[in-house]
C-alpha cells in the first residue's frame, strides 16, 4: 500500500508533463521562478546580473548563480558585451512558448500549489 508521501506526490504530479519537467529541471528554485517571470514580462531586456537583481528586488549574490544556471539550461542566453556579462531571454521559440504556458498556468491556484510543492522538493 502506498504511503502518504507517495500519495501526495502522485497528486502533485498531476499536471502537463512538459511543465512538470520544466519545474523539476529548470525552474527548480523560487529565485529562478522570479527570473523566468521577469524575462517573460520583459522579453527584450538584456542586462547585467546587478541590474536584473535590482529590477527583481533581490541580492545580486543570490541572483547571479541562478542566472548562470538558467543560461546553462537554455532558458536564457548570456554573452560578453564590452566586458559586461549580460543575460537575455532565449530566442528559442519552443522554450519561450513553454515558459509562457508555465506563466499562464500560474494564474491557477491549484497549479501554483503543485509547482511550489515541486520547487520545495527540489530545494531539499
Amino acid at each position, binding site marked *: 500500500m502506498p504511503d502518504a508521501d507517495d500519495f501526495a506526490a502522485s497528486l502533485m504530479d498531476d499536471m502537463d508533463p512538459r511543465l512538470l519537467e520544466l519545474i523539476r529541471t529548470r525552474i527548480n528554485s523560487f529565485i529562478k521562478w522570479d527570473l523566468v517571470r521577469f524575462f517573460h*514580462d*520583459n522579453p*527584450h*531586456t*538584456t*542586462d*547585467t546580473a*546587478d*541590474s536584473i537583481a535590482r*529590477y527583481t528586488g533581490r541580492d545580486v549574490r543570490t541572483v547571479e548563480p541562478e542566472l548562470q544556471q538558467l543560461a546553462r539550461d537554455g532558458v536564457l542566453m548570456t554573452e560578453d*558585451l*564590452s566586458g*559586461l556579462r*549580460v543575460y*537575455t531571454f532565449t530566442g528559442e521559440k519552443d522554450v519561450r512558448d513553454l515558459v509562457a504556458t508555465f506563466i499562464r498556468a500560474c494564474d491557477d491556484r491549484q497549479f501554483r500549489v503543485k509547482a511550489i510543492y515541486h520547487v520545495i522538493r527540489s530545494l531539499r
Partner: protein
Amino acid sequence: MTTTRIPTGISGLDEMIKGGFLPQTANLVEGAPGTGKSTLGMQFIHQGISACDEPGLILTFEEFPKQYYRDAANFGWDFAAHEAQNKLRVIMSSPEVTAADLRQINGRIEMLTDQIGARRILVDSLSHLEQLTADPVELRQITYEFINGLKRLGLTSVLTRENAALLGETPDSEEDLAFVVDSYLMLRYVELQGAVHKALLVLKLRGSDHAKDIRQYAITGRGLEVRSRFEGTQGIMSGAPVMTHAEAFAAAFLSPPGGKS
C-alpha cells in the same frame, strides 16, 4: 523645397515646429516630474504607429514595460496590441548596457530596429546616463555618442530629461545637453493667479524655423494638447510670472470694483 517632417501628432505642437521634427534627429523634452514628458513621448510613438505606419521603440531605464502599457491605455493607446502586431518594442535596460549595445555592430537595439522596421524611438529618460560618470565632459561625450548611435540606425528620437526644479529656471550645469540635441522643448509649471498651469516652449529646432512664444498646454484624455500662448504676462519661464504693465494697468483702473464689467 519642402522637407519631410516627422509629425508628433500632438495638437498645437506640430504647428509650433512647422509640421514635426526633422527625420533622424534627437529631440529633447525636458521638464519637472508630472509635466508630461513621457506622455509626449508615448504620443509621438503612438502617432507614428497608428497614423504614419512608422513602428517605434521605447527604451526605458527605469519603468517596466507594463507601466507604459497601463499609462498608454489611459489615453486609449493600445501598446500591447502594437507589440503583438510587431509595431512596437518596449526595451528595459540599464544605461551602461544600452550604451555598450549601441556601440556594437548588430547589437540588440539594432536588431530590434531592423526586426520591426522602427523609425521612431522614445528614450525615457536620458537623465539616467548621468549614472555612468560624474565627469560632465565625459557625460557629454557619452550622450553625443548615444545620440549618434540612434541616428545611425535611422531613428528619430524623443529623449526625455528630468528637471528637479518644479518651478523656475534650470540650473546652468544642466544646459550642456542643449548643444548636442537637434531640438529642445521645455515643459514648465507656471504659477499664475493662484493656480498652477503648464507651459511649453520650443527653445531650439536646428535647421528649421519654429514658434518662439510660450504656449499653455494640458494633458487630456487624448494626450497632450498645446493651446494658446500666455497673454498679458511676462516672466513665464521663471515659474512665477507677473502681469505686463498694460495688463496691470487695465486690472487696476479699467476693471470695475467687484470684477464685473
